[in-house]
């Protein structure tokens, strides 16, 4: 498997590492205790009660303020669909004047029944499902021309208000990137406490391990921003200018 460039390169490193191993004046650092030390199992992720999950949602809302992520909680998906409808009507396209929506082919997003909900507004919704390369160009173009992209997320991290998205067939990474407005819809149960919990789950949960990280695992923490001109914060440098998170709380 290893190519000639790799063999020569690694041989050189091995020589560099072993040539001076004795009497190194720089302490090698303490051995990293991954088993019992820094990566202990996070406490009771799965067995969290509703109260605990709602307090994680409160934390998401609190963290969302400074990064300009707009979070709303909804009892059911009908209420989410109405919220998206209002947003679609009130927002204007950034490029051109055509209004169209690209959405993930995902059970939760499908359940919103958006083509029906947006029908009378005249705003079309497409779910990019790509089965062959010919579709790809067409679907790409649809996403490029959409002013709103709607996705779900695999998880949301409470302590930084971060969305965690894997990429799968029909769940393109460009839907959360290219349109000017990104809408994400999740269920309350998908909120985790922290990055530590997330990596632990990705590393230990049998389903997650089985699926792997997918070609691109993306974290999104608020809308795109830059401060490159005189440190003035501007949203919408390259990615979405606005990000909305709808959380279905149930009951």
């Amino acid at each position, binding site marked *: *498997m290893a*190519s000639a*460039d*790799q063999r*020569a*390169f690694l041989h*050189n*490193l091995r020589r*560099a*590492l072993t040539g*001076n191993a004795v009497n*190194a004046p*720089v302490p*090698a*650092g303490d*051995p*990293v205790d*991954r088993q019992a030390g*820094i*990566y202990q199992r996070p406490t009771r992720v799965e067995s969290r009660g509703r109260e605990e999950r709602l307090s994680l949602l409160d934390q998401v809302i609190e*963290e969302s303020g400074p990064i300009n992520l707009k979070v709303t909680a909804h009892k059911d998906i009908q209420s989410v669909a109405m919220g998206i409808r209002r947003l679609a009507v009130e927002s204007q396209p950034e*490029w051109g004047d055509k209004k169209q929506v690209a959405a993930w082919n995902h059970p939760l997003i499908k359940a919103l029944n958006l083509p029906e909900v947006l029908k009378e507004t005249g705003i079309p919704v497409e779910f990019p499902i*790509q089965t062959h390369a010919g579709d790809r160009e067409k679907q790409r173009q649809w996403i*490029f021309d959409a002013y709103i992209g709607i996705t779900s997320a695999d998880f949301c991290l409470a*302590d*930084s208000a*971060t969305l965690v998205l894997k*990429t*799968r*067939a029909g769940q*393109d*990474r460009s839907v959360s990137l*290219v349109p000017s407005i990104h809408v994400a819809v999740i269920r309350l149960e998908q909120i985790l406490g922290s*990055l*530590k919990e997330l*990596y632990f789950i*990705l*590393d230990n949960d049998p389903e997650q391990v089985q699926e*792997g*990280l997918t*070609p*691109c*695992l*993306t*974290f999104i*923490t608020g809308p*795109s*921003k*830059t401060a*490159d*001109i*005189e*440190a*003035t914060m*501007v949203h*919408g*440098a*390259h*990615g*979405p200018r606005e990000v909305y998170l709808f959380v279905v709380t149930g009951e």
Partner: protein
Amino acid sequence: MKPNPEQYTATARTAVADPVLQKALAGLQDRFGRGTALAYQQLPEGPDLRHVAHDIRMDAIQHLDSLLDELAGNFRKNGGQVYFAQDAKDAVAYCLKVAQENNVKRVVKGKSMVTEEIRLNDALADAGIEALETDLGEYIIQLANEGPSHLIAPAVHKSKEDVGRLFTEKLGIDYTDDPPSLTRVARKALREKFLAADMGLSGCNLACAETGHITTVSNEGNIRMASTLPRIHMVFMGMERIAARLQDLDILLRLLCRGAAAQKLGTYVSHISGPASPDNLDGPEQLHLVILDNGRSKMLADPDFREMLCCIRCAACLNVCPVYGKIGGHSYGFAYSGPVGAVVTPLLIGINRAADLCQGETLCGACQNACPVNIDLPRMLLLLRAKLADGDEKWQVSRRSSLEKAAYQFWARIMQNRRTYDLAVDAAQLLQRLLPTNRGMLRFLPPPFNGWTKSRDMQPLAAETFAQWWKANQKGDAHGKR
């Protein structure tokens, strides 16, 4: 941009006299320097997490050979291609080869210091390929034909009026100095470029051996664009940027984002592990990873400097350094500026050549306290100075000044003998009376010490030495109490 650390003093002098730059640097350090310190304090584990991060990094560096092997194997298993480049020329040649084989005409780039290091843009331009920087700051300096002056805020030296004039001249817009309007102009211009590009280039904040993925962090979303839209994505990675296990990323990413911009997490963190596949068509058709040595294995081979490979290029040290805060990034004359540049640049391009860089730092230690992985930069700055003072065969350093060395040896001889020391002090006390003074301070010293008094006055030697005072005052009070 060609490296020119030889111009350190001249560039620094210009920088210190530039009021716009001085204001920008002070603002930057005030914001990020304090912000980062506060962000470390607010870590759930407390600021000592930096020490754990140091252990994680050092552990990875000590096993770099096997981890890179593991990374390459897993990256290929995920469908990517890996190339190990010995030096800049090698890396550039691989990039050009892939570009030419795939008929690439237009390239979009995410911010990457390692591509600055290997001067990839020049090579692409020479090959007739348009390579466009897409980070707003990098885009600005590319339009202005300058080099970055900060690792994270590359256009910090430009005022909004500068940017307004630049955009008017280069992009043909009506003049404005409103940052949101200027950002929109760049957003629109670059969006079209992203959609039309054949290849996206990016750096790599960290790669993970266990999973075979690379991680990139950005606030603007340009790296996501460059890694998602073009049909080829090529990643350039300094060989040291590796994490052994997926869970190591928790601590490393949290510290990286706090060090870089006092954020809990950057807006976008992508873990990229493979190209598009038949059942997942979004993303590039080809994914390439170029792992670069370019002098790093020399640091690895020297236990004195191995620690420098822990660096994750967050620029936290720039944001607290009193020297960087005055002279700005261009003075360092290479891709890497500030304290990290003062150590890395000499090690990469030659210690003699970049001698001014390590001599210019103050050894105050602020950089180590700001470092998310707690690298002992002052220790390595001192070691570089020692190599310059004494010469060093392994690093091919020639002694910077034999006169200076002789003078210190002479001084050491005088210091070691009570009688010669007293004589020297008496002589100096006499001689200093001949020098001009101002409010009790010496205005000028004679050559070769005149450099010291170019911009400051010197405290004269006291009329009475401590030894004399002690002799006169210890009578009747053995404890020396007044």
